[in-house]
């Protein structure tokens, strides 16, 4: 076996994906730290970068500047990061498992369920006059779990889960809940603004307590998705080809669907519906590092995180102190970026 030398690894054109993944991840983490630090500098109250460093280093929370950094800007930053990671990562996994580049994390109806839960809460708050803001995430979570359950039950045939039925059930549940939300919006007056804000995504309520709830599901879920990435690669060949490669496709689909939906449900309940990220960030990372899920999924998560930090910073500062819903910013910034990359790909004829 004269081929078995280090040099030959390059000759037969297989750079080890683990080296590639390692460098990409290190690069990603460093960029997120930099983006995060830059984001901390912006806000309604301007604070010197020097002061921010000292506040961070000494963990100062005894003055107002320290509180702004530690209790307002950092939780918001971390929430944006977690939401971006989840939306982009789950979007990538769903696009892989459903073999559909148009899939996004909301395709199976999770978003509409969560939105209905939250909007019901907002409506109740105005009708009853009670303060329910802390209850909204719970209601959103209940709503999204109801929608997951409905999609699961509607698409199940004995022990089968045909892919088209899953997608159709998702679309149907989505439409049904969206119709109910429209009804709610139609009869709402004063509460319309906060409902619309929720529907477009809102990170202004981030807190350490909320982060502590979101953190665990997001990290366990991401780990499980990345663990399944080799099987997701096989799915690209087609359902039967994946079966021939020893993958239990229906089980895998159910697993990815449940993990992804639960992650999204938890995140969305605290942040509202942030659109665009879950659909397009996976495509951007595919354009950058190729479609191999073992690298593409972590890269999606990192780009998603950095992208949402950026968008949220813009959303809260561009016409400060008024905030813009982050969902509007994601699309306004993301679409030109995406079109540019798409055009470049077509010219280079790669990926």
């Amino acid at each position, binding site marked *: 076996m004269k081929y078995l030398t280090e040099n030959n690894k390059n000759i037969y054109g297989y750079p080890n994906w683990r080296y590639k993944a390692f460098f990409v991840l290190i690069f990603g983490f460093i960029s997120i730290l930099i983006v995060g630090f830059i984001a901390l500098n912006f806000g309604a109250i301007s604070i010197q970068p020097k002061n921010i460093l000292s506040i961070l280093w000494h963990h100062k929370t005894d003055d107002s500047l320290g509180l702004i950094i530690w209790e307002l800007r950092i939780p918001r930053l971390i929430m944006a990061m977690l939401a971006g990671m989840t939306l982009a990562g789950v979007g990538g996994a769903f696009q*892989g498992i459903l073999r559909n580049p148009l899939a996004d994390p909301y395709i199976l109806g999770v978003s509409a369920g969560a939105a209905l839960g939250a909007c019901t809460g907002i409506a109740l708050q105005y009708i009853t006059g009670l303060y329910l803001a802390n209850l909204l995430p719970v209601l959103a979570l209940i709503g999204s779990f109801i929608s997951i359950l409905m999609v699961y039950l509607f698409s199940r045939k004995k022990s089968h889960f045909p892919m088209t039925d899953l997608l159709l059930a998702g679309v149907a549940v989505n439409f049904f809940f969206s119709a109910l939300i429209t009804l709610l919006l139609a009869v709402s007056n004063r509460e319309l603004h906060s409902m619309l804000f929720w529907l477009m995504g809102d990170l202004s309520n981030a807190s350490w307590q909320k982060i502590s709830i979101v953190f665990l599901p997001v990290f366990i879920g991401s780990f499980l998705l990345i663990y399944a990435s080799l099987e997701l690669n096989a799915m690209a060949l087609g359902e039967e080809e994946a079966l021939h490669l*020893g*993958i239990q496709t229906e089980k895998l689909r159910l697993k990815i669907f449940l993990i992804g939906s639960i992650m999204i449900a938890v995140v969305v309940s605290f942040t509202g519906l942030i659109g665009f990220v879950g659909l397009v960030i996976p495509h951007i990372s595919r354009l950058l590092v190729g479609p*191999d899920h073992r690298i593409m999924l972590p890269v999606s998560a990192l780009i998603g995180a950095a992208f949402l930090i950026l968008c949220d910073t813009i959303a809260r500062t561009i016409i400060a102190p008024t905030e813009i819903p982050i969902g509007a910013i994601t699309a306004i910034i993301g679409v030109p970026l995406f079109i540019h990359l798409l055009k470049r790909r077509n010219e280079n004829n790669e990926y």
Partner: protein
Amino acid sequence: MNIKEPIIGLNNISFSYEIKPILMNIDLSVFSGEFIGIIGPNGSGKTTLLKLMSGILKPQRGQISLFNKDITMIPRKKLAKIISVVPQESYITYNYKVKEVVFMGRIPFIKQWQGETVSDYLISRNAMEKTNSLCHAEKGIHQLSGGEVQRVYIARALAQSPQILMLDEFASHLDLNYKHEMIRILKGTLQREVKCIVSVFHDLNLASFCADRLILLNEGKIEISGTPQEVINNENIKKVYKSRAHIIQHPELAIPQVIM
């Protein structure tokens, strides 16, 4: 190992989708070194038979054995190390590089986290060399032509280092030069690593050219099985395909060819 022991054995297989019967009372044995061709008109159950043999579908009646073991008792992952299948045509969702597609054939052998090893690389590279697709290794699969993609699929199947290779109409829309090349590649593997090849054929002439033994299906039953000479004759073709055809002998080889 006893040479007379069949590698694949089908014992009185019946299969139906819902209530529509597709295959009835199929008995078939595939032996080591054989290239089996399954032929028959559209809807006669060719592809279904292949799916049963590769373990994708389960028969309602009868038993399928692989190396004398009931196929339903073999876990998917283990089955994937024995059988590999070249699909008729399939679309790969994202634009993977050719080498990545071929490498997917190694998935049944890779342990999660450990990732691929040097021997996995070598096997994939070898498969690409054999199918003349090494020159495309760095290209995206969507940039290749139909014939090149077919060769990549065969490379993918060979990378799975199968003992049994199954194909579904592998060359039906390929040009003449590609057909010859594919046949050469397949026969080459049959002599070395692969124990037997089972292929569905649409094209009777190609089937007669490739296979050692033909299985002629007619409305879910085996009409006749035997060498191309035995199977392809006026009487059988007229009965099964219900149309007139002329059978002539190949000018160089002792095989029948069908012309309209």
